[in-house]
């Protein structure tokens, strides 16, 4: 007697539901934590730390970010300069503010200086900004929680 065994090959399908759930959770996690506001930061600058450096609740108005590295090079957006040669770049920003009906006094100059740069260089940077008319400065530091 011939026994006919018929097997129907089925496509093996794993249950993807839990994996998709987990992947979605990971995506949501990274989306929430991604911070596009850090684009002004410069990798070459290691900020000094301070226990009082607390992130501001409201962002500063009309910010101009100056990154000063250890060797005295100033990074202002895509431009690079020395402290001595910074005036034309600062003047461009002041003119842009003037076109908006504001003045250099309304801008907040954020100074992100390397922790090992000389303090005198930071003073010179502030002086250079003052010559163009800037008055408000924010010395940025890394939060150091005890």
């Amino acid at each position, binding site marked *: 007697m011939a026994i006919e065994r018929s097997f129907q090959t089925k496509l093996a399908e794993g249950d993807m539901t839990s994996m998709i759930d987990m992947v979605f959770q990971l995506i949501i996690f990274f989306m929430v934590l991604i911070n596009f506001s850090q684009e002004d930061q410069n990798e070459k600058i290691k900020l000094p*730390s301070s226990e009082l450096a607390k992130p501001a609740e409201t962002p500063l108005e009309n910010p101009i970010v100056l990154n000063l590295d250890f060797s005295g090079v100033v990074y202002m957006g895509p431009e690079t300069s020395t402290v001595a040669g910074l005036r034309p770049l600062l003047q461009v920003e002041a003119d842009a503010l003037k076109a908006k009906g504001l003045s250099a006094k309304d801008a907040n100059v954020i100074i992100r200086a390397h922790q090992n740069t000389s303090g005198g*260089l930071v003073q010179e940077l502030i002086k250079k900004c003052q010559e163009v008319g800037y008055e408000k400065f924010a010395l940025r530091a890394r*939060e150091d929680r005890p």
Partner: protein
Amino acid sequence: MAMQFKTHAPEKAEMQLTSMIDVIFLLLIFFIMTFKISAQEGDFNVKMPIGGGQGAMDTTNIPIKLRLRANGDGELTDIVVDDSRSFGNDFAKLRAFILQLTGGNAPPDPDDGPEVEIDLDYNLRYEYVISAITAITGQRQGDRIERLVERIKFAAPRKPNP
């Protein structure tokens, strides 16, 4: 003769998930690659109009002079207040002095209260300047920050010795 109708068993509707999973994995890889853990940053606000550090001085509100001396390597050697009190390189002592001066109370208005003028050696490392500003401007009590001095300015830079 009766007609025969074939009835099909209802098939399970299945969505094609392959392309969606591909896109989701691409998104996941993008977020993982761009993810960067960085410390929070905060600001010390300094208002310094031109001439604020020089020129005619208002004798009714003379700022406290804070002198920061450095050695050749840019390390802090001495903290001197008003050319008379020396605190070595101990910022805790400087803070204790400021606490004594202000009574531990924040000024009612940021434009009020004592003003400190920081005069530093040109080659002093910037981290010491921030440490000095930290000691002057306040202290942390748990999650709360107690403000002490709000008004800070810099003296004219001292040119480096040749």
